[in-house]
């Protein structure tokens, strides 16, 4: 393990915080996409189509 000196706790907390936040951000974006896909699939199953696609 690399020796980060007397302020290692600040360095580790900074990197950990950034990568956890980015991980949560990516997870929220993926979950949002899944939620919207389900919403569209439900509408499609009910037979609702865009007017441009219906013709």
């Amino acid at each position, binding site marked *: 393990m*690399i020796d*980060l*000196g*007397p*302020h*290692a706790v*600040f*360095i580790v*907390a*900074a*990197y950990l*915080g*950034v990568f956890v*936040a*980015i991980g949560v*951000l*990516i997870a929220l*974006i993926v979950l*949002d*996409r899944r939620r*919207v*896909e389900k*919403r*569209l699939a439900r*509408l499609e199953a*009910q037979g*609702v*189509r*865009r*007017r441009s696609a219906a013709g």
Partner: protein
Amino acid sequence: MSFETAQKPSWFARLAHPGQFLAWTRPLLIPLALLSAGLFAAGMYLAMFASPEDYQMGDTVRIMYIHVPNAWLSQFVYALMAVSAIGSLVWRHPMADVSMKAAAPLGAVFTALALYTGALWGRPTWGTFWEWDGRMTSTLVLLLIYLGIIALWRAFEDPLRGGRVVAVFTLLGALNIPIIKFSVDWWNTLHQPASVFRPDGPRMPASILTPLLVMTLAFTVLFLTLHLASMRTEIRRRRAVSLERQRAAAQP
């Protein structure tokens, strides 16, 4: 002899059409995500193992490799939103609205991370997590503007009407960007002046500049990936809203 009856849409108009946008961005997402992951791996190696400690700050200089990219993105994302706001107000382009809306939460996260990493860097180097100086306060104001924009988007049921209000608010908030940039020159601050983007070139050795540039590129490609992914979701959300309205209108 034939006569053209309608002008063909330009390549840009076709690229920016929501349906076309979904088609041409789809094959980009995975390569961009892989590029970002590769850059992060290389950047982390350079930041942790292949760069020296600073002669004054010691190992805390390594916080710079995540602080500066987040600070850069906090302003870059806002500049992108301001350009999209002009696109929304002047051309009323729906993709400009989509770009603005998708970028706001990303900008808020990068700004919060710039403040967080700045505080953790400030404590061992300045002796304090926070100081109400020009750079830090204007960056906090930027975070509040991002949060205000996110709240505004949520306040409107109709995204088209909301888009115009948000665009005006976004352009007003853009006044804060030069304040952040020049705060270190205008006022006496604890924060150091610019050391990368300077007229006379970067003021740091290559051994520190290289990991910084690689990490900045990694974060920027990450932002582009997440922005494209969020824009694609937003287009689909608007499609769902439109279909739900269509269904409601068809019901007796």
